[in-house]
């Protein structure tokens, strides 16, 4: 059947209308106040280790300070969020249980933080959780973190810095105010991509814990070994990992622990990492770190060029010790979030060390670490 220009125009219009109806329509119609916005979701293993236990932090907009509230009473003094939890054999089933308790559509489009309980992270293969962003209309930019202990405790803990604890965590991850290098912000697309692109790359995520004041706060980072969580990094190790992963921090310091006492406010830095073999066939992990900054404190005057070189060398040595400590810890955990294995595979894909995950773990643990550390002052600040 031949279609003329007019017919083609109608056909194109019809197709466009069809696409429009397919893209959105009145069946998606839900008023803002008819939606329950979930900002934080904690996932723990279900009772007896079966299924999942989900804890959600849901916003109550009308109780936020300054929000327009009905009846003229406002929301002063009321908690502007609501905790709801439920069990289910799957994550969607548990969420359905929560929906039945709030009688509103659970809107996950503004979910900001997913917290995995430590038990879940150690038991479940992270790769099986990638269904969360694919099936539940969750933004790929949601941050993934792991709780020291149960995710439920973190999701229920208040925080005095923000009206809604989830927003405190989100703003810290997003760097809204400042972001310390000790806070590792890992969006879920990054976490899941790293676990799926190569078996030789591991992932990491920021840690959350209930602190001594009963508030949800940041605590190191969790690293994975394949699909399962391998262990925790300290705050200092997290900061160094952050530096190598390329995330920027604000107001970060490099400080010597031994004499002389020197403090450097880091303003820029360059890192590079790669792996190769030494002549006797041992795998070598190379890390180069060059940082620059402003000297803000020192034990004594730094006047001559020789003083400068001495101070720079002391800081460079401190930096080197921190990098080595991080890598040695990661080697102990057999976790490779910096992706040395994949880098080595790209150098020689036929090498026996990169033929399997197990082979790489063995080689990784035995690998020699070489750190090239350098520090430069480009400006001297206040000298104590």
């Amino acid at each position, binding site marked *: 059947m031949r279609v003329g220009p007019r017919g083609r125009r109608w056909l194109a219009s019809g197709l466009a209308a069809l696409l429009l109806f397919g893209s959105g329509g009145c069946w998606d119609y839900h008023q803002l106040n008819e939606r329950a916005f979930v900002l934080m979701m904690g996932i723990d293993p279900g009772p007896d280790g079966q299924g999942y236990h989900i804890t959600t932090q849901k916003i109550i907009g009308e109780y936020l300070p300054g929000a327009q509230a009905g009846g003229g009473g406002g929301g002063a003094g009321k908690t502007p969020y609501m905790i709801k939890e439920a069990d289910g054999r799957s994550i969607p089933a548990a969420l359905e249980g929560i929906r039945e308790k709030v009688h509103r559509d659970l809107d996950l489009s503004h979910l*900001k933080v997913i917290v995995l309980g430590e038990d879940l992270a150690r038991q479940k293969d992270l790769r099986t959780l990638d269904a969360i962003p694919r099936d539940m209309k969750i933004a790929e930019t949601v941050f993934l973190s792991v709780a020291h202990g149960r995710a439920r405790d973190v999701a229920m803990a208040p925080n005095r810095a923000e009206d809604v604890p989830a927003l405190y965590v989100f703003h810290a991850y997003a760097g809204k105010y400042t972001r310390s290098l000790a806070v590792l912000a890992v969006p879920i697309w990054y976490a899941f991509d790293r676990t799926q692109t190569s078996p030789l790359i591991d992932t990491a995520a920021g840690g959350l814990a209930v602190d001594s004041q009963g508030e949800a706060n940041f605590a190191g980072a969790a690293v994975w070994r394949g699909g399962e969580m391998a262990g925790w990094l300290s705050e200092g190790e997290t900061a160094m990992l952050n530096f190598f992963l390329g995330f920027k921090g604000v107001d970060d310091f490099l400080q010597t622990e031994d004499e002389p006492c020197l403090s450097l406010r880091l303003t820029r830095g360059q890192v590079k990492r790669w792996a190769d073999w030494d002549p006797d066939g041992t795998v070598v992990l190379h890390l180069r770190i060059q940082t620059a900054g402003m000297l803000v404190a020192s034990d004594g005057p730094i006047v001559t060029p020789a003083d400068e070189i001495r101070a720079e060398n002391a800081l460079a040595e401190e930096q080197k010790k921190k990098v080595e400590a991080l890598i040695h810890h990661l080697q102990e955990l057999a976790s490779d979030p910096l992706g040395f294995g994949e880098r080595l595979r790209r150098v020689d894909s036929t090498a026996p060390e990169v033929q399997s995950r197990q082979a790489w773990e063995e080689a990784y643990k035995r690998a020699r670490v070489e750190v090239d550390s350098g520090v430069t002052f480009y400006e001297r600040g206040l000298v104590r």
Partner: protein
Amino acid sequence: MTSGGGSDKQKQQIPNTSNYEPWAGTQIGQWLNQTVGPNLEENTRILKALLSAGDTRIVRFTCLGGQGPEAALVFFEGLADKVALEDRIIRPLQLGMRNGSSPFQGPRRDWPRRVAEDLLPISGHQILSNFDQAVGGLTAGQSLLLLDGAPGGVLLPTPGWKERAVEAAPTETTIRGPKVGFAENLQTNIALVRRHVQDPTLRVEPFEVGIRSKTKTAVVYIEALARPALVEEIRRRISRIDMDYVTDVRELSELMQPGYRGVFPMHSVTERPDRVSHMLYDGKVAVLVDGTPDALLAPFVLVENLISMDDYYIPRALATFDRILRLIAWVAVVFTPALYVAVSAYNPDVLKVELAIVLAGARVGVPLNAVLEVVLMGAMMELLQEATIRLPSKIGSAATVVGGLIIGQAAAQARLISNIMVVIVAITAIASFVFPVYEHGISWRIVGWLNVAMAAMFGIFGVFASMLLILFYLNSLESYGVPYLIPFSPLIPQELLANVLGRQAFWKRKRRPRSLLPRDERAAVTGEEAQP
């Protein structure tokens, strides 16, 4: 492309009206075609029958103190200046002979011409031969002199009707620059344009539009700059108007584009002579209509929505800033209510989380959904705007305050609408007033309503789809051969920067906008920019 009534199909539909006689076959038609003969009694009888109106006056007197022929002076009460009739027509005819020679000598058919030329101190007379001309002149406000025994007559301009003086343009106000606006008199308006355009090639072509009304119309252009095809097209469209009466320039605008049903204007209408002169220098053509304090300009392109005459009277940086503000206002008018509906009902995920929370909090307890909220408040604002125009200025301003603030706040406090809705309506209403020409603001408000409808059905996808449809539609339009979206489509980057996103520096303006296809693009003697 869909032109403002300019497609070939539409051209064929326009009838040729040059031979159309609405009174053919009637007694009136017979009288109108009849020659004005030498019998004064017969002539006045026919005129009385033709102009059987209470305000027709016929004054009869004898010329040269009884030694000349009897004469009749016919005029309409209120249109003729009685002092001028007495002093400059009746008295000279009764009393005087100029240079000692009587005009009533020689062939009688020459008497009217000789009287007008030799005796009466009035210029601009018109000799007539039939009653059609006589009636046309009288209804246009002239006075008719008939002489017994002489065939024909003479029409004499003796204007005596009351007119509004030339005043400031009320709806296109500017802070700087000329304040004067057009008046209702065609000659006055032409003179106002001439005062701005002292170009020897300024052409004023008179037309009569309306078979019965014979409304005086003038096509004004600068011959050296206006595209000949454009002038010819405007002449053709005016001459083919077959309506029996035309009273206003907007009526004329619609009649010049038969078949066009869009909301976007194909001509710009302005009440400012300085705007007309600017546009004439850009190669446009203006049409003035007697009795209308506005001029019609063609062609018209969409970006003129953003241009105010103030832009030419303030420093360039300020003008550029103002244009960017108008662009923001355009976005506010077209998108704000629709986006509110879309994000409230379908796509809260596109909002920042804090904003989504605030919006959700504001909507708690509001019984109307977001669509009804927008419709209710939007309709109220439209009503207010309409009421403000109709009411006297002092009451009008009060109505705006009462409607906008008090009713809006009261509705929000009563929880009929959310506070956010009041903010959105206020933004939209204020932004719609930013358009330099009132009608353009209305066009875009209609588009805003279309977007709201699409947002209510399809969310943000609907808004995008709606704007795509509008874009396709606008891209299919052209005004007198000029694409409506130029310089966006087809893209002319230099003009986009110089005339849309900012105002070009005067010292840099060496060429006229190419988009308007002027006859001569050069706007300066040399094509070089001035050096500091």
